[in-house]
């Protein structure tokens, strides 16, 4: 084993910097001046970033097959021998150990890098808010938990981080706790996530029973027993592909992931989580925490590769979520909510990628998404900041020239997420679509591809709708707010610019021919079994065609958004505006509408009804307006479904829990004799059961013998 460098040796320090500063803030923060709070909190994250970057560089300097570094800080839960499902005596143990491999190095760079930028941004954004030190204390605590999550070398330590980020998310969503909606949202996030956690916990127990270990891998550990890591056990060939117990385990883990990463059916908490301050939305609910599920599934990719049914489930759920959330994004008027649905949709993309076995593509999209989605949130925060807290896009517009830096950085991110080459989002999204298409023989992959393609179009549509309503057109800003519009301070705009740069160039490391990213991750996601006839990842005409199609679809979405939102606004305006060249198409469209009107309305009624409806359906369906109406209709429907059915279920389960509490309390009458009666009742119950049990088993033996 070659010598580990300084940064690798001190890898355990990376999470400790934010932890120390969080402890300082929560204990003494109230007495510290603001400047000291900023320096300590932002500085600690920066130091973490430096240590993370150093460690990754030192890891990268090694030959590809040795790029696994594990360091056990101390033995946490000592080896406990027990009889599990695996043959022989299993040793259950867990260390407090750090694992740095290509996968976790991507994660720590994203977490500390983007996290640092968001911390810088928060200095400006939270400057006027009360509880400054508390905010930064929670943020740093979050960084600690997230780094523990991605660096942990076993499932249990990952779970520590998993719960920790949940706690911080909860505290930060409810940061403006005087607002009832904020504390309600925090509660909702908490409850929904617990459902996922229960699944995850059961998965851990199942893993420890079946595989006999919960450490990820024994690579990079000197003197570790062979097969003391789950991945090594899975790769050893001891299990066959498609074994039911593996599928069950994979599904349980995925249930955990659906909670944290807001997938169907546990996604409802994320839009509400936007009640938190905007940097929180950017850091936790876009760039890092919500991707924990993606990370976890990728970490366990050896398991998923052996459980094809689970893989397919992941792909289908991911595809559905991507589509479903995108339709909802179409009609939102709150700028942050659009982004929230967009996040859910993009997470769906990532799971789609994982589900078709394109783990690299999923992580690649995770990274680029972290750049542009963080930027979008921070940009929207800057807009909200400029408009003194306004979040409704109907009261925005025409901000392009007033807050130029925010505007062009936002535009860069929008182009990136829409999938316009050569920005970051294009490469990752295209990779996912292509791998989905080539995912397998079954027709379901083609369907998923189509779903993904349509979603890409919708993504472009709603993002440009957002941009158009916010930055272009005529200002609909309220009068007294209008005077105060100002560009944000440089502590906010500089992070925007850096993220914009990353959103533009971040995808280039994954250029189809170079595939730097893919080669970097290769050791982690190598196929478990020799892949027979796996899709050749090289360049082909088909792939080029696909690329062209996805670009065209994105452009189509943009064109649609441009039509509907800029043009119609012009029309609603003075007549004079109509004649400007820019609004030509609007006029044309209106003309078309009049044609339709005259065609349908002027028909005689006896001919009209049946035929007319048919025509309206077909012609509208082909027309711009019709397709827009159709999408809007579906999204209305899904919103309705979301509000009344899914939310209703969540609220109902909360109500049931509370409701179940009352009978328990009502029995507690305070009367000592009713208590004695319950005791007597208990005695009689025990008597019945004790006497009844042998009788039951007696009858059972009779039945068996018969």
């Amino acid at each position, binding site marked *: 084993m070659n010598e580990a460098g300084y940064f690798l040796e001190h890898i355990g320090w990376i999470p400790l910097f934010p932890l120390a500063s969080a402890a300082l803030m929560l204990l003494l923060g109230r007495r510290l001046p603001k400047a000291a709070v900023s320096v300590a909190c932002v500085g600690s994250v920066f130091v973490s970033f430096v240590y993370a970057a150093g460690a990754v560089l030192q890891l990268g300097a090694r030959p590809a097959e040795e790029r696994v570094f594990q360091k056990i800080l101390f033995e946490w839960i000592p080896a406990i021998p027990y009889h599990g499902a695996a043959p022989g005596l299993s040793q259950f143990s867990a260390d407090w150990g750090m694992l740095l491999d290509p996968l976790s190095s991507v994660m720590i760079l994203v977490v500390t890098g983007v996290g640092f930028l968001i911390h810088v941004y928060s200095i400006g954004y939270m400057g006027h808010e009360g509880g400054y030190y508390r905010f930064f204390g929670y943020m740093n605590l979050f960084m600690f938990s997230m780094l523990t999550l991605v660096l942990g070398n076993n499932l249990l330590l990952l779970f520590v981080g998993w719960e920790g980020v949940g706690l911080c998310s909860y505290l930060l969503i409810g940061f403006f706790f005087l607002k009832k909606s904020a504390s309600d949202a925090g509660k909702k996030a908490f409850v929904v996530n617990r459902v996922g956690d229960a699944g995850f916990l059961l998965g851990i127990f199942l893993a420890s029973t079946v595989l006999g270990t919960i450490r990820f891998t024994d690579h990079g550990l000197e003197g570790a027993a062979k097969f003391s890591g789950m991945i090594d056990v899975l790769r050893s060939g001891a299990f066959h592909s498609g074994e039911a117990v593996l599928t069950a385990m994979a599904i349980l883990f995925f249930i955990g992931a659906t909670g944290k990463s807001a997938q169907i059916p546990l996604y409802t908490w994320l839009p509400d989580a936007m009640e938190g301050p905007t940097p929180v939305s950017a850091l936790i609910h876009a760039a890092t925490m919500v991707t924990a599920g993606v990370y976890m599934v990728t970490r366990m990719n050896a398991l998923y590769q052996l459980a094809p049914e689970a893989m397919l489930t992941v792909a289908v759920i991911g595809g559905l979520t991507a589509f479903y959330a995108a339709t909802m994004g179409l009609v939102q008027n709150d700028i942050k909510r659009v982004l929230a649905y967009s996040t859910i949709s993009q997470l769906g993309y990532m799971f789609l990628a994982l589900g078709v076995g394109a783990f690299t593509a999923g992580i690649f999209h995770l990274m680029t998404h972290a750049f542009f989605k963080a930027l979008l949130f921070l940009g929207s925060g800057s807009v909200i900041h400029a408009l003194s807290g306004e979040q409704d896009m109907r009261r925005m517009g025409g901000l392009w020239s007033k807050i130029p830096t925010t505007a062009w950085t936002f535009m860069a991110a929008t182009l990136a997420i829409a999938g316009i080459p050569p920005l970051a989002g294009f490469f990752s999204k295209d990779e996912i679509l292509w791998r989905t298409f080539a995912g397998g023989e079954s027709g379901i992959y083609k369907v998923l591809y189509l779903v993904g393609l349509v979603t890409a179009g919708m993504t472009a549509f709603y993002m440009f709708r957002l941009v158009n309503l916010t930055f272009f057109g005529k200002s609909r800003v309220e009068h007294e707010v209008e005077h105060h519009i100002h560009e944000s301070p440089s502590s906010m705009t500089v992070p925007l610019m850096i993220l914009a740069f990353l959103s533009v160039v971040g995808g280039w490391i994954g250029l189809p021919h170079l595939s730097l990213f893919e080669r970097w991750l290769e050791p982690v996601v190598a196929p478990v079994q020799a892949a027979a006839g796996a899709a050749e990842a090289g360049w082909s005409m088909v792939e080029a065609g696909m690329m062209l199609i996805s670009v065209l679809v994105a452009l189509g979405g943009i064109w649609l958004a441009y039509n509907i939102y800029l043009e119609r606004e012009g029309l609603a305006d003075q007549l004079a505006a109509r004649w400007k060249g820019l609004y030509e198409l609007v006029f044309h469209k209106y003309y078309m509408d009049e044609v339709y009107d005259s065609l349908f309305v002027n028909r005689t009624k006896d001919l009209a009804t049946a035929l007319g409806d048919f025509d309206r359906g077909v012609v509208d369906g082909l027309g711009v307006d019709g397709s827009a109406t159709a999408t809007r209709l579906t999204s209305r429907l899904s919103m309705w479904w979301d509000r009344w059915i899914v939310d209703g279920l969540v609220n109902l389960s909360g109500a049931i829990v509370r409701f179940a509490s009352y009978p328990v*309390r*009502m029995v*507690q*009458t*305070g*009367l*000592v*004799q009713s208590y*004695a*009666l319950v005791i*007597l009742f208990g005695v009689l119950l025990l008597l019945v059961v004790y006497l009844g049990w042998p009788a039951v088993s007696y009858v059972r033996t009779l039945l068996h013998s018969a």
Partner: protein
Amino acid sequence: MIPTSHYLVVSLLLFTTGVIGVLTRRNVIIVLMSIELILNAVNINLVAFSQHLASLDGQIFAIFVITDAAAEAAVGLGIIIAFFRNRQTLLADEMDLLRW
């Protein structure tokens, strides 16, 4: 000689009487007395078994149970007095400050 099972039946009757007393009497002092009945049922059992098994353990146990009953009564009455001073009542069903 009276068979042991007869003692057990008497003891069971006494036990049941005590339980019914605990459940139905409103005055807490009578409830306390009913509990003494239960302990007496225990004593009858112990002595009967002691006789049956020709072992002294049961009788020793019985003496301890009697002692315990005395201590329980002393503590119980002390608490009842404190309760009565504050609340001016001895009825079990008026004891409902703590509930839900």
